[in-house]
């Protein structure tokens, strides 16, 4: 009984801070966020935030990075109005960029078209299509 009284006293004394903490929990969606961290992997949450092939193309770039090796960094171009994410998601900081490998994200045009990407004229017919998913393409040059 005494124990219960002591616990009650503690709660009454700290009721304000407890209420504030609970309201912050609610406001920040703590329980939902906590549940999602427990049930969804980092990769899935990244896909939700940055898209698989759409939006910023995290999923596509991550797949290419995991499955192909590059001597030089590929040129990545996103046809959506999105920032260039290649510097972080696919490039190696110690390698230089080369036009031998090209990745196009959210590209809906002709695969044999001539493109102007980052001040370079690129004729896609000179490249082999290595991998494609939806509107994302990975091309490598014929040597």
């Amino acid at each position, binding site marked *: 009984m005494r124990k219960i009284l002591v616990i009650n006293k503690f709660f009454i004394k700290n009721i304000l801070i407890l209420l*504030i903490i609970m309201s912050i929990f609610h406001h920040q969606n703590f329980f939902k966020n906590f549940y999602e961290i427990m049930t969804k992997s980092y990769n899935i949450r990244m896909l939700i935030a940055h898209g698989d092939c759409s939006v910023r193309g995290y999923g596509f770039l991550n797949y290419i990075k995991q499955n192909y090796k590059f001597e030089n960094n590929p040129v990545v171009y996103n046809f959506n109005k999105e*920032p260039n994410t290649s*510097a972080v998601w696919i*490039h190696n900081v*110690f390698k230089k960029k080369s036009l031998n490998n090209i990745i196009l994200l959210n590209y809906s045009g002709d695969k044999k078209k001539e493109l102007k990407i980052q001040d370079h004229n690129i004729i896609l017919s000179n490249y082999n299509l290595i991998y494609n998913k939806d509107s994302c393409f990975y091309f490598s040059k014929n040597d």
Partner: protein
Amino acid sequence: MIEVFNIVILLVMFSLLFFSPLSKRFYNNIYKNYQYNIFDLATLNLVIFLFILLILSFSNIQTQKIFYFVLLISMTSYIYNFSFFLKLINNKNIKKLLFFFLVFNFVIYINLVNNLSLGWDSFVHWLPKAYNFYSGASYENLVNFHSLTYPHLGSYIWAFFWKNSLLNFEYNGRLFFVFIYLVSIFSISCTILNLKNFNKKNKFIFIILFILLIFFFSSSDNIIGSVNDHLFGGYQEVLIFSLLVMISKIFYIIKNKQSNNLLIFFLFLCSSLLIWIKDEGLIYLIFILLIFILHTDIKKKLKLFYFFFTLIAIFIQIFIENYYSNTHNYFHMSSFFHESLLKQIFSFEIIDRSILIIKFFLISCLKTPLWIFIVFFVPIFLVYKKLYSNFKYMLTFLLMNIIFLFGVYIQTPHDLNFMLTSSMHRLLMQTSGFYILMIILCLNNLIREPIFKNSINS
């Protein structure tokens, strides 16, 4: 589960590192007769830590080695000064605040970790730099990889905690941004503990209310419960905000409590960190220099020293950025004094531009609601001059800041509408922290001398 464990470990690590009592004598010498608390101590530790990181960021020393070195120093300080640490937290209010601080951190960390979106500028400027350091490349390598148009300290900190965490995920670095942000908010709100006019019994409630007010009103993101736009989405404004909050507190102690050389040195350290975070930091550094010269009763010799040291800090930064940059055009004024500048100024266009700036200023105030308070309090000061007798320097800072805002947008050669929508709220947000103390001190003065004492109710 492992990610939650990683977050808990990071929170414990941040707390161990930055609440570590380096030396009782050291803090006593800095704060002298000002009664400091654990959050003031964390502020100084953070400034020291950031300055060490800044210097080491130019070396090729691995971040892991730096991390273990800092951890070792912190652990040693606990062993030697544990009784001092216990004394610092041996206060009911501080214990509750510390508990609240840890819970608050954890809740925001969980929100940030679940919502991993990043801002546009983060991908363009800050994250590539952070990735460079994370990959073990040096400062020099930034030039091959990404332009040196912007300073790198924020990215280096990001990479530092990204690398030195249990799971090497990018967000670990951003969790530190939350930590420094909350330390600054708690530290500034705890100023109430040292103010006499607040009722002793209600001080804790007032502190909590101020913490919540600053948190919710520093960004509209916080009001709607999102953490992933310009606050913790990788933008550097939150660091500028936190440093300016810390600077405002240090400046307040220098001006109103005591002016000792060590604290002035810390003011210098803290303000010189600004130029290594964002370009605007240079302007804020100059503002702080000016208010230091104009509003403190310190010997002229010391002011002169401060002036020269600040100039040296600025020149060092410009020199380093230009030395490593392949374009060598860092801090060239050609973009400011562009061809159409004269035409813009000496024509009716300036009126249109000014109206547009004022319109977006008001809209941006809604995005950074702390500015609503600032805009509300300033006319009160102008009517009741007694209220602002001890913080005129904040009004000087405010005036210079508004001139700066107008200057930036009046001269810009780019599309003004786009510039205003994309950056005005961020410029307002990063300086809003400097005026928080003005609101606290004004309320303190109001309690002492209620301006409505002759009203009908009384």
